[in-house]
């Protein structure tokens, strides 16, 4: 194959089919996979924020005033930790990928930001576990007090509760990992493969 010949044709190649718009507003919205991931994560996060905000209203009906105070303290800690995650997600959404650096730098930046946020996203999902367990425990205690049930009878099936809880946690963690890797991990893996292409060859 003669590259000089191709180079000659390459230099002469026209670009008449490329229309530069009269203004930036005429362009479609960013459709890059990274922007899509950010958009998807943002929508899911809105749902999570709504859920967190709805929790005190839903649980309000269940608890008596003594447990209510205890629950609100527990809830406040959860909200504070969630706020840290939300702030970091916000920074990720606002972040612009730098494409003007070398390909290797640009890919590494993209890869590590994606991986970091995928892991953050997973750990935020895991954060719900102690909160849900704590809330359910309070619901059970509250229920036993209201119905004047024997607490020992309530916790008599402790082993069953424990096994059911552990199984639910394992299934929940597996679902989060599966979902996040399926939806967001695929792109990170593709970037990882391209980075591999840039490794030194002898």
């Amino acid at each position, binding site marked *: 194959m003669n590259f000089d010949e191709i180079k000659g044709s390459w230099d002469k190649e026209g670009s008449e089919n*490329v229309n530069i718009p009269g203004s930036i507003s005429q362009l479609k919205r960013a*459709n890059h996979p990274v922007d899509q991931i950010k958009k998807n994560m943002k929508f899911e996060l809105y749902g999570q924020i709504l859920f967190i905000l709805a929790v005190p209203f839903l649980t309000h009906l269940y608890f008596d005033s003594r447990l209510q105070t205890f629950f609100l303290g527990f809830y406040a800690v959860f909200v504070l930790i969630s706020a840290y995650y939300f702030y970091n997600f916000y920074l990720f959404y606002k972040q612009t990928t730098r*494409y003007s650096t070398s390909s290797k730098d*640009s*890919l590494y930046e993209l890869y590590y930001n994606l991986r970091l946020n995928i892991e953050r996203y997973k750990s935020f999902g895991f954060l719900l576990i102690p909160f849900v367990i704590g809330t359910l425990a309070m619901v059970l205690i509250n229920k036993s007090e209201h119905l004047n049930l024997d607490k020992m009878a309530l916790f008599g099936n402790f082993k069953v509760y424990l096994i059911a809880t552990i199984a639910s946690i394992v299934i929940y963690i597996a679902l989060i990992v599966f979902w996040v890797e399926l939806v967001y991990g695929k792109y990170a893996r593709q970037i990882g493969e391209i980075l591999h292409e840039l490794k030194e060859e002898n």
Partner: protein
Amino acid sequence: MILNETQTISSMRTMETEFLSSLEKHKGILHKVARMYMDGEADCEDLRQEIIIQLWKSYQTYKGESAFSTWMYRVPINTAITFFKKKKKLVTTFSPEVFPEQEVEEYDSSKDKQMELFYKAVHQLKPIEKAIIFYLLEGLSYREIGKNLGISEGNARVKLNRTKEKLQMLLKNKDYEF
């Protein structure tokens, strides 16, 4: 306050006009990058639009740390490398069997046959290999190719030679040698 806002809008418009006129001069880069990375006019158009968006985002913070031409190469190439289309597999292995035979039969005589065949072969390359061939044809030295990719000059040389051999093989296997 209102005066400041008016000045900001006016300076943004000036910047946008400057940007679009620079882009008009370099639109050949957009055309070639899109043709190398995408198959089909609709996908090419999507990628060109995406490149313009990323160029514009980058232009607003471009402070001239690198030459305009370097910047004008890097942003389109880095955008194209990471722009994966859904439902299309990323070609990660060399497979001459997947060479689209049917499309060659539908060759349009008005187009440059050599370049048509060249682009078809290029579509079988991996994203970094495409970038290497692009830089080679744009006349960049090994050093510049290495710098733009973020690899050493020696590594750029090795990769370029292997990519050229691969491209040659792709064309040869289907009697497309020229």
